[in-house]
């Protein structure tokens, strides 16, 4: 087949070859046509000429034959040989004998014999023309060779037959025409060559550039450009190719940046084909961090599953199977792989499954982040935590021991400090009662002072114990009616209130609230007690107790019209044993407000006061419900 051969050769060679072939073919055709034309021309020229010769010879022979001079006739016929191209001239009489010929040897012999020595084609032609019957001049083309045969009747009894060879005139004509043909052939070839050059410039040179550019881009040299311009097909293809190459180059650069990013990141990206053995189909260059090359993993020389820590293997496989069967296709886990040095690397793996159009899993992809240092920190933290917990337990035990010690201390205080007081008070009273007669007024006053001192000390001890008690007691919230609690506290001061003629305004309408009853009672007792104590000189003392509940907070307010205090002592009054007045003026232990603050703080609340000297004081208690 010629077709494959045509596709094997590049167009830039094939086209000139075809052009050359066509040029040669054209030249040959031209030559053949010219030759045919020459033959035709020669045949027609010779026919005309032969007709003229035969006309002339007929008249000449008719005149001469009348003279009956055979010899003369014979010479006339022989003289026809002077005409170029006439090879045979034979005058045949009615008997078929040759009476005139160009060769003497043929005279007086029958025609057949006379021409026996001629080549068969000539002989057959002569015999055929001789057998004609026409009276005029008859010229025919020799059927056997390139010659003309002519016959003319000379008087009724004789016929002249002539053969004119066309070969010589043709050769002469050809000789003259060949130069012309060569010129034409040269012109055709020249034209073909010019066409080939033009084609090369317009088409094949550019297509070769296009081909080279496509090949280079195909090999990955995305910076190659065809550089073709123009609005023809090649130009447009070339420009499209250049745009495509630029796009590819940009994408490739982007891809390289991404790949560099992955390789520089602490992440290893890896892909497995889902088939037995899980061959690795991609792994980022960053796997070199683990001491392996991507090629080792891709070729299977190093198998990923052999790198996995034996303790993690089963878990990892189970996770994969579970996600393959039940999904989801995206999951996360942790496992260890062996560094080439033998150390274990902790990895945070994010894995997702790749499915084909039919939903079958074809690939498994993971990004693996080295979290070894994180894990080490975590473990260190856990260890630290464990020791911390142990330390907390130890400290708690120490604190509890200290607390127990404090408890036993306060127990001792309650028991042992109070015991001597009983003795002092008891014997003082016995003295006062049983020995009254033997004491003068001053002695009795001393004993009364002793007993007052005992009472003060007792009060102090009780307050101290209450303070220590509050410390140890966790608040126990229970539904408490504030109204009722306030009433109870006021009842406990009923005697004092009546004695002072104090006016008490209570505005407590809060519903039952979950609070620590003992704590709140202690707070109220102390605040009301304080208000009465410091307003006893007012006329009359006025005490206001109000409450408000808002946004989960309880606000309790106790105000009086007493002596008040300077706000610069605000923080001091809530400190234990802190007093602003002499005990003779306003008796007390200096524990009351410290107790209030402690109790409120135990309930998660705060207490503060607003006052000015001589303008009374307002205590504000705020605690969450």
């Amino acid at each position, binding site marked *: 087949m010629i077709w494959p051969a045509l596709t094997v050769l590049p167009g830039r060679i094939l086209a000139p070859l075809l052009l050359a072939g066509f040029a040669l073919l054209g030249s040959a055709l031209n030559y053949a046509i010219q030759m045919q034309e020459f033959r035709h021309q020669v045949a027609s020229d010779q026919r005309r000429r032969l007709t003229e010769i035969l006309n002339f010879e007929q008249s000449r022979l008719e005149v001469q034959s009348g003279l009956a001079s055979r010899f003369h006739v014979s010479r006339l016929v022989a003289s026809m040989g002077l005409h170029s191209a006439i090879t045979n001239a034979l005058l045949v009489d009615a008997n078929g004998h040759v009476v005139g010929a160009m060769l003497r040897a043929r005279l007086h012999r029958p025609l057949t014999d006379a021409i026996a020595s001629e080549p068969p084609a000539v002989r057959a032609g002569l015999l055929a023309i001789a057998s004609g019957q026409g009276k005029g001049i008859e010229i025919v083309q020799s059927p056997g060779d390139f010659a003309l045969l002519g016959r003319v009747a000379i008087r009724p009894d004789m016929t002249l037959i002539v053969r004119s060879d066309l070969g010589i005139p043709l050769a002469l004509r050809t000789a003259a025409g060949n130069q012309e043909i060569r010129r034409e052939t040269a012109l055709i070839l020249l034209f073909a060559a010019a066409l080939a050059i033009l084609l090369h410039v317009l088409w094949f040179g550019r297509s070769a550039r296009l081909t080279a550019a496509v090949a280079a881009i195909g090999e990955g040299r995305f910076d190659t450009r065809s550089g073709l311009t123009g609005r023809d097909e090649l130009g447009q293809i070339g420009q499209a190719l250049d745009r495509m190459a630029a796009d590819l180059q940009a994408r490739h650069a982007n891809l390289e940046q991404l790949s560099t990013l992955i390789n520089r990141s602490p992440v290893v990206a890896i892909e497995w084909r889902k088939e037995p053995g899980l061959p690795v189909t991609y792994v980022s260059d960053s796997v070199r961090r683990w001491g392996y090359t991507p090629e080792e993993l891709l070729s299977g020389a190093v198998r990923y599953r052999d790198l996995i820590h034996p303790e993690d293997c089963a878990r990892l496989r189970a996770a994969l199977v579970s996600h393959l069967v039940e999904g989801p296709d995206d999951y996360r886990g942790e496992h260890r792989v062996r560094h080439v040095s033998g150390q274990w690397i902790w990895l945070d793996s994010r894995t997702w499954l790749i499915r084909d159009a039919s939903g079958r899993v074809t690939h498994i992809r993971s990004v693996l982040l080295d979290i070894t240092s994180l894990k080490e920190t975590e473990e260190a933290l856990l260890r630290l935590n464990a020791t911390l917990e142990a330390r907390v337990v130890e400290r708690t035990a120490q604190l509890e021991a200290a607390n127990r010690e404090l408890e036993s201390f306060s*127990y001792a205080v309650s028991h042992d400090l109070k*015991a*001597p007081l009983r*003795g002092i*008070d008891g014997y003082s009273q016995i003295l006062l009662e049983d020995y009254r007669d033997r004491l003068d007024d001053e002695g009795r006053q001393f004993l009364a002072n002793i007993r007052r001192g005992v*009472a003060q000390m007792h009060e102090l001890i009780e307050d101290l114990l209450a303070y220590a008690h509050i410390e140890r007691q966790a608040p126990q919230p229970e539904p408490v009616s504030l109204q009722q609690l306030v009433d109870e506290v006021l009842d406990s001061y009923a005697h004092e209130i009546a004695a002072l003629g104090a006016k008490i305004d209570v505005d407590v309408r809060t519903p039952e609230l979950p609070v620590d009853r003992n704590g709140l009672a202690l707070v109220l007792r102390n605040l009301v007690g304080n208000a009465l104590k410091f307003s006893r000189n007012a006329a009359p003392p006025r005490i206001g107790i109000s409450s408000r509940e808002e946004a989960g907070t309880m606000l309790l307010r106790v105000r009086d019209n007493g002596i008040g205090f300077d706000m610069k002592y605000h923080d001091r009054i809530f400190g234990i044993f802190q007093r602003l007045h002499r005990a003779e003026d306003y008796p007390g232990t200096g524990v009351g407000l410290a107790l209030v603050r402690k109790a409120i703080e135990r309930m998660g609340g705060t207490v503060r006061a607003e006052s000015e000297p001589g303008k009374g004081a307002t205590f504000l208690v705020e605690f969450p419900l």
Partner: protein
Amino acid sequence: MTTEAVSGPILLVEDNNVDLDLAMRAFARRDRSSPIAIEVARDGEEALAFLPRWESGHPTPVVILLDNKLPRVSGLEVLQTLKTHERFRRIPVVMLTSSAEDEDVRTAYDAGVNSYIVKPIDFGKFIAVAEQIKLYWCTLNHSQR
């Protein structure tokens, strides 16, 4: 005040000299004509030493007044021994102590104490307490013999 139906003494367990003296005086204060018999144990061991004597016929007390904080054997231990004793567990025991601690009160009642009284500092109140004890435990209350 007259006392009726008193068929036995009061056992007072007290280690503190002053407290013991004051208690004796408080009980005798308004009762000088017919003073109630008071037996005394100075610590837990002495208190428990009464058990064999009671078994051998010595009259059992109508009430035992027990201090808690005692040398060697504490009042609570004496209480527990008494209240688990087959014969003497029904003798009323009143804890008379200086501690008002919730914990002490709770454990005493858990151990079966019949009453818990905090010793008053004020001697006048102490006399009142002694009067109340005599009235209730020696007169009104009928303990099982």
